[in-house]
């Protein structure tokens, strides 16, 4: 479960270029819920993800993951509870290390690391099996350094790494935006499959309205650091792309009038 309570964050406070990133944001995802976050640039999507992962400290407010208040917990300790896939395929993997070593790192995310051999036969067999699900042939390239993989392969690997160990919360930060349509489709299908089989509580940020319509059981629209609109349940199932775009349109009309 994820709970964000009255989160606020202002950059450059008191300066001429003051920027309110989060303005009393409230958001709850119950266990197993798959929330899709949309919103225009600067609406606070990235700030929200950074606040959840711990990369950005809040000015005020509270963040609870899986029942534990993690507001003051550093990034590497929050990793016990959450996993994240970044937009940039380079960010989520260690380029100079092999596929198997990357899998090992993710495998140990919520465990204590010991002074024993990391890559043993049991683990390698497990990694091979988990990578085979993708159908990209990564299972035969365990000893390949990740920098030699394509962007799509790296992102698929990031995804398998993130969903392993069944994190309390999965954060997807426009994770298909940098991929070509075919690869984006493969990664998205693998994502949905993993989220559904493992019943992961998931928050996905996207600019792709079709994805927002097709996937997830809740659409959350952010604007000016707040949740502006949230559509759940049956209403979410009926929503169409034009409906969503209308909500953006209302906002931009207002911005025109205000300007």
């Amino acid at each position, binding site marked *: 479960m994820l709970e964000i309570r009255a989160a606020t964050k202002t950059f450059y406070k008191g300066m001429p270029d003051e920027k309110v990133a989060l303005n009393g944001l409230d958001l709850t995802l119950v266990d197993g819920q798959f929330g899709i976050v949309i919103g225009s640039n600067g609406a606070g999507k990235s700030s929200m993800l950074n606040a959840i992962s711990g990369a950005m400290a809040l000015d005020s407010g509270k963040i609870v993951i899986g029942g534990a208040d993690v507001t003051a917990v550093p990034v590497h300790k929050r990793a*016990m509870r959450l996993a994240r896939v970044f937009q940039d395929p380079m960010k989520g993997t260690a*380029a100079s290390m092999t596929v198997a070593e990357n899998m090992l790192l993710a495998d140990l995310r919520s465990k204590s690391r010991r002074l024993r051999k990391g890559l043993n036969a049991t683990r390698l067999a497990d990694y091979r099996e988990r990578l085979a699900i993708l159908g990209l042939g990564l299972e035969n390239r365990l000893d390949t350094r990740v920098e030699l993989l394509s962007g799509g392969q790296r992102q698929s690997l990031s995804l398998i790494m993130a969903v392993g160990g069944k994190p309390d919360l999965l954060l997807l930060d426009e994770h298909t935006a940098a991929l070509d349509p075919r690869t984006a489709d493969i990664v998205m299908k693998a994502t949905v499959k993993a989220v559904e089989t493992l019943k992961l509580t998931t928050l996905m940020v996207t600019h792709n309205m079709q994805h927002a319509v097709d996937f997830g059981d809740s659409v959350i629209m952010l604007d000016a650091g707040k949740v502006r609109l949230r559509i759940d349940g049956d209403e979410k199932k009926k929503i169409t792309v034009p409906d969503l775009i209308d909500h953006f349109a209302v906002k931009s009309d207002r911005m025109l009038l205000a300007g």
Partner: protein
Amino acid sequence: MDALQAILSSFLTLIPVTLAQSLILAFVVLGIMIPFRMLSFPDLTSEGAFPLGGCVCGVLLAAGVGPLPAILAAIVVGFAAGFCTAYIHLRFRIHTLLAGILMTTMLYSINLRIMGKSNLSVFGTPAVFDWTPFPAGFPAAKIAVAGLLVIVVFLGLYAYFNTERGTAVRAVGANPDMAEAQGINVWRATVGGVGAASAFSALSGALMVQSQGFADVNMGLGILINGLAALMIGEAITGKQTVLRQLLAPFVGAVAYYQLVSLCLAAGMPPPDLKLATGLFVLAMLALPSLKRGRGPRLAKETMRE
């Protein structure tokens, strides 16, 4: 023809002495390689940690402490030096190179304080090299002890970097943001890794003092560039694609580099020119990729080579 023969014969007679020296100095090269390659933390602390280890060892030997405890003390103090460099970088966000220069500069005073004077003779005190069946003071004894130590350290590190913890340390060097997101404590890995690297440099200094029979505050002068040159030669020979190759590089490089220096000296190069030659060599190795790129259009974003 005679001249060539003379050069060759003087080089050949020097091989064992040079080998002994290079096996001892291999630990400085290791102390440069670990932060540089495993942690992406270009570090200059070894220039100060090497004489620090030497001075601590020298003072303790002069005070009648056994050679082994003296080496252990040097290792502990060396670790502390690297720990400080890493802490300065992490806590105050000071560039790693500047943090290393700060530490090295401060260590010079500290080394003088430890010894109370600029050099100290410990000739005749017991050394770890006395514990071999070979006659003490001869290169064979030094080669045996330093060589054994090299093998033990190499195997130990190779095993370590393949453990769960060692893999995590390497991840910090490969991608610190990713490492942190995978639950790895980047601070602990960096401080521990840079500390261990300086401990190796200090170990080298301590062994050197026991080998040459005196300690000197200036014994580290230029050791960093020598070590860097050795590392580059090593990497050119072994490559650096795998942990095994990367770990072999400092040892292979140290042996090759010091034999090369010995050959240059035997060929009549004046010793004062050595640092210039080494510096030019390191410069050439660093400049090679950009020279290979030729006179084509410059990269839009110039990336710094560290």
